[in-house]
């Protein structure tokens, strides 16, 4: 159980704002902080990890108080057991992949944890490469593996997949899922990507100007509950074509592209790049076996 009750004055894009949060996160949950840039999502991660100090409040992790302004407790980042994946990966450029992982080990930790992680993240082939020779997706896998080496109590992910293209992003979501199932770590993800959030997380806190605007399961937050679709996918509008009677909207769902027919008025509400929900109600899907 993680208890977070913090307040901090921040310099946002609209001037000064107060970040005020009160969250209880169950152990083993995968939650998301969602919201536009500059609402203080990254600052929340920095305060949990001890890299930034709240003005006042309390941070408790599994019965242990990491920060409390009343009792003047403030653990240094070194003493908190946190795995942090930074937006820019923050790999040590002068160390190989293996050295990066080994550096994260605690003093008396043996090599098992690093070799297990190398296997889970499929890094064995890359272990002697320097970060500068890796692709974005490979760097991300190294950063994730490195964050897990010291067996943290919380995993913090700061927009880990934002800089990657969609195919690799989808693959890495698979790794994140695998890691979460394997280690059952309490995980806090900062993300803008609705697809990613629905795919990965249990619970979403939507922030605005430092406050929680909405909270709930991803479905409850992003998908209108009045619709009962049998099939529903979140996609991105790639193209809108006006035909004589109807419009054809091209939507990317994960790595697939589909065309959806809509009325002109409906199409007029859409712009390219919009996140949309593609759903189909009350129909009987067909299944074809393609591989035994």
């Amino acid at each position, binding site marked *: 159980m993680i208890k977070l009750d913090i307040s901090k004055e921040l310099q946002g894009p609209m001037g000064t704002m107060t970040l005020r949060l009160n969250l209880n996160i169950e152990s083993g949950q995968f939650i998301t902080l969602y919201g536009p840039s500059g609402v203080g999502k990254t600052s929340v991660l920095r305060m949990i*990890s*001890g*890299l930034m100090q709240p003005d006042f409040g309390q941070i408790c992790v599994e019965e242990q108080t990491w920060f409390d302004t009343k009792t003047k407790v403030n653990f*240094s*980042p*070194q*003493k*908190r*057991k*946190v*795995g*942090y994946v*930074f*937006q*820019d990966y*923050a*790999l*040590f*450029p*002068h160390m190989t992949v293996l050295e990066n992982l080994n*550096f*994260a080990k*605690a003093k008396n930790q043996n090599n098992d944890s690093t070799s297990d992680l190398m296997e889970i993240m499929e890094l064995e082939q890359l272990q002697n490469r320097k970060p500068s020779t890796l692709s974005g997706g490979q760097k991300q896998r190294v950063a994730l593996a*490195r964050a897990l*080496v*010291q067996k943290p109590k919380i995993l913090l992910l700061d927009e880990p997949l934002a800089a990657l293209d969609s195919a690799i992003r989808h693959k890495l979501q698979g790794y994140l899922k695998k890691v979460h199932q394997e280690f059952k770590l309490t995980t806090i993800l900062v993300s803008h990507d609705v697809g990613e959030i629905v795919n990965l997380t249990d619970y979403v806190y939507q922030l605005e100007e430092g406050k929680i605007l909405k909270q709930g399961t991803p479905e409850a937050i992003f998908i209108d509950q009045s619709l009962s679709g049998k099939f529903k996918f979140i996609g991105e509008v790639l193209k809108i074509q006006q035909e004589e009677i109807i419009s054809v909207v091209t939507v990317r769902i994960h790595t697939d592209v589909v065309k959806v027919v809509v009325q002109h008025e409906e199409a007029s509400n859409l712009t390219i790049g919009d996140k949309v929900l593609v759903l189909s109600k009350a129909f009987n899907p067909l299944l074809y076996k393609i591989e035994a």
Partner: protein
Amino acid sequence: MNWEPLLLTFKLALFTTVILILIGIPVAYWLSNTKSRLKPIFETLVSMPLVLPPTVLGFYFLMAFSPNNIFGNWLDEWLGIKLVFSFSGLIIASVIYSLPFMVHPVQSGLSGISRSITEASFVMGKSKWETLLKVQLPQIKPALLTGIVLSFAHTVGEFGVVLMIGGNIPGKTKVASIAIYDEVEALNYDAANFYSLVLFAITFCILLSVYLVNGNYFKGFWK
């Protein structure tokens, strides 16, 4: 030929550089991290030797370390150290005189490392000291090399400060640059030429090696 002034010059430069590594890196680390309002003042003080005439520095050292003075007298009586006209005095003056040449490259190197890299190390439970030694310094090897070599070369080229505080005592404070001046005054152009040529050749080689290494001409050897 008398090699003594040349050897003395390189001994002085070596001692100065070693002390500067020990002092310059912590100063650069502090300057690159501090949010103190006094930072501009300290930055100015570190950079002063770049613009002040060496004689100004030498003059104040002479005043401060003179046994006629409270501080110089205290050093002499309590610690038995005489810094005026002695080799140890030369080292202290050279350290201060060459300080910016060590601090500036290291400071800009450290400031250039992305914040998240050092923070990643802290989150992994590594202390500031371990992070400096294993994460930050190894990443700024070119800046360190520049700092070390420039401090060494700048100390080799010292004249004014040395003359003011060290004088011209053979074997003790008579370094090559002063020997050259001395020989020219005595119209011994051959001896002056000898010292000059050696200094010229050595400093050329030192600086050339820095540019070659930092320009990555020896790939795989350094980076």
